[in-house]
């Protein structure tokens, strides 16, 4: 349907439809962010012998995040006097906008996808890299030493991890023969890539945590060292934008892992096909999100220099070896 609309000549009707679809996606994502944050707090709570939110919105704290966001809206918006004002204002937007842009190529089911472009995976990785600019700018514009260190760490981390991230999916691309995300899901009809590309998956998963700035790779905002890192001077809704970007990326990255390695909307066994693809997608997606939360509850933080070492000396060679191995097997047996 979307394909046809894209082909048709521009007009108010298809503009309206696109606008509506965008709004639907926004609601889905914001819904995820609202309840993703709640789920994270609940899961962390139970892992840490606490209850998590349990007051606002019934005993499960269903409205806790809503209340938090409202509070952030009402907070005073502080821009430090010494800050670089225009950059300070634009940084959260730069961090946030790409996180939504990457969702356009994500095939949630075989029908629900906004842009089926040929280089979907490449697009995701390229656009998501832009967010680091937001962090770096935010850190620089704050004119705060902790923020500057956080921004520096963010960019150093991005360089060290984007490369293993790309290299680790090359194996999948070799097997699929395409960068298109739909083709990748179709190629997993007879076996998920998590089984066919276990090394690639592990490298990709580790690099993705670094990409998401989550524990154990939350160096840019490491609370115990840099207090809050790049967003230390941000308050109110500008701060919320950074956080929103983080959780939208959690959504996007979990979706990407589901699509690339876990067979997207496909059922694990073919006789379970009667269950709609959206349900399978949601299930796999939830498992990935849970693993991210689980890791956060368990692991201590990496040290900045060790992290670079790990990225360049461990992950990258493994990813390269994986490409070689995949290419070898493919050319010998297929």
């Amino acid at each position, binding site marked *: 349907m979307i394909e046809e609309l894209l082909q048709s000549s521009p007009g108010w009707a298809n503009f309206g439809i696109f606008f509506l679809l965008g709004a639907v996606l926004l609601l889905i994502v914001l819904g995820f962010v609202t309840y993703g944050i709640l789920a994270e707090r609940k899961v*962390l709570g139970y*892992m*840490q*012998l*606490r209850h998590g939110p349990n007051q606002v919105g019934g005993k499960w704290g269903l409205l806790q995040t809503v209340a938090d966001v409202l509070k952030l809206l009402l907070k005073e918006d502080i821009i430090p006097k010494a800050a670089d004002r225009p950059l300070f204002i634009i940084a959260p937007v730069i961090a946030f906008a790409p996180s939504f842009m990457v969702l356009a190529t994500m095939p949630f089911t075989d029908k629900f996808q906004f842009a089926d472009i040929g280089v979907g995976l490449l697009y995701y990785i390229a656009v998501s890299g832009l967010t680091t600019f937001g962090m770096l700018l935010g850190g620089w514009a704050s004119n705060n*030493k*902790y923020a500057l*260190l956080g921004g520096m760490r963010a960019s150093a981390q991005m360089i060290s991890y984007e490369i293993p991230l790309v290299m680790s999916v090359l194996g999948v691309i070799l097997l699929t023969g395409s960068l298109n995300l739909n083709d990748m899901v179709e190629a997993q009809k007879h076996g998920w890539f998590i089984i066919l590309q276990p090394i690639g998956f592990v490298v990709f998963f580790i690099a993705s945590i670094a990409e998401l700035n989550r*524990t*154990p790779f*939350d160096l840019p905002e*490491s*609370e*115990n*060292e*840099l*207090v809050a890192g790049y967003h230390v001077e941000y308050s109110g809704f500008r701060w919320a934008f950074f956080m929103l970007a983080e959780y939208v990326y959690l959504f996007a990255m979990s979706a990407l892992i589901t699509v690339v390695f876990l067979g997207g909307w496909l059922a694990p066994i073919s006789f379970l096909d009667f269950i709609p693809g959206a349900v399978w997608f949601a299930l796999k997606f939830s498992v990935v999100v849970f693993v991210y939360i689980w890791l*956060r*509850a*368990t*692991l*201590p*933080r*990496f*040290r*900045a*220099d*060790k992290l670079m070492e790990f990225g360049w000396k461990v992950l990258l060679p493994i990813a390269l070896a994986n490409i070689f191995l995949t290419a070898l097997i493919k050319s010998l047996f297929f």
Partner: protein
Amino acid sequence: MIRTEEMILNVGPQHPSTHGVFRLVVKIDGEIITEAKPVIGYLHRGTEKLAEDLQYTQIIPYTDRMDYLSSMTNNYILCHAVETMMGIEIPERADFLRVIAMELNRIASHLVAWGTYILDLGATSPFIYAFRDREMIINMLNELSGARLTFNYMRVGGVKWDAPEGWIEKVGSFVPYLRGQLIGYHQLVSGNEIFLDRVKGVGKYTKEEAIQYSLSGPNLRSTGVKWDLRKDEPYSIYNRFNFDVPTSEDGDCLARYHLRLQEIEESLKILEQAVEQFPGEGPIMAKVPKIIKAPKGEAFVRIESPRGEIGCYIYSDGKKEPYRLKFRRPSFYNLQILPKLLKGENIANMIAILGAVDIVLGEVDG
């Protein structure tokens, strides 16, 4: 031409990882520290000066607030000093209660040290597990003394309250429980590669340096010096118990981490024996005059607190207040080596090193 310059970074006094109001002025080149200068005194309350106007019993609550994670040992050091001056014999039951309370408090303090150390390194959950177990100790001490942190439990000549019904058994059953928990602690953290990466070989110093800088407690023992006042200058009834003094040869943060966990095990051994030998009945206070007056003269005593050697010097001119009171506060001395250790390290290591020293700011600032 690219020009770089050093930046002065103020860590603290309000910072998540300085364990209180401790300020560290560091000069950094990128993330590498070229110079570190600790600034202390934000929590100075003048305990020693205040004590000069107070009667000995009135000073005890002030000692609670020095090392607030281990108030029992602080209570003890003051009572011990006055008792030494007056030559008071302590009833056996009171001595047992004191030792049990002090060892429980030592475990609680080390649990906080363990939990907050892992928290400093970025993992949040172990902190809460440590506090769960500490909470049980705090509850027990609460039943004993009526307070959770500032116990004010000991008096010159004995202890204020007798153990309530069934309390000793409760302590006895806590020992195997915590032993089980300790295994879990090791499984959760001790073997974690990221954790080892952060602490192994970090913040290293030698035996000679440790002695030169007057370090004590786990900070000293991590370099291989077997020095524990409970063994080497036994006070109270510690000579009745069988326990080891764990040491390590490495002298790094990992060694100090392991020593604290091993000391918990040794304290559990002491508790086990103390509960077994606990006298069924007897007085908990020696016969002491209503108004305590230390005889003219001076005394210095020292004991092993969880953080190291805590000492108390009293000069008395025969009145009911001390003429001069001085505490040797181990955290203050342990902190001295920090500028030397931090030179050339990066910011992440700074937190790891500071955490491993295990300071309590109430004690540093006095």
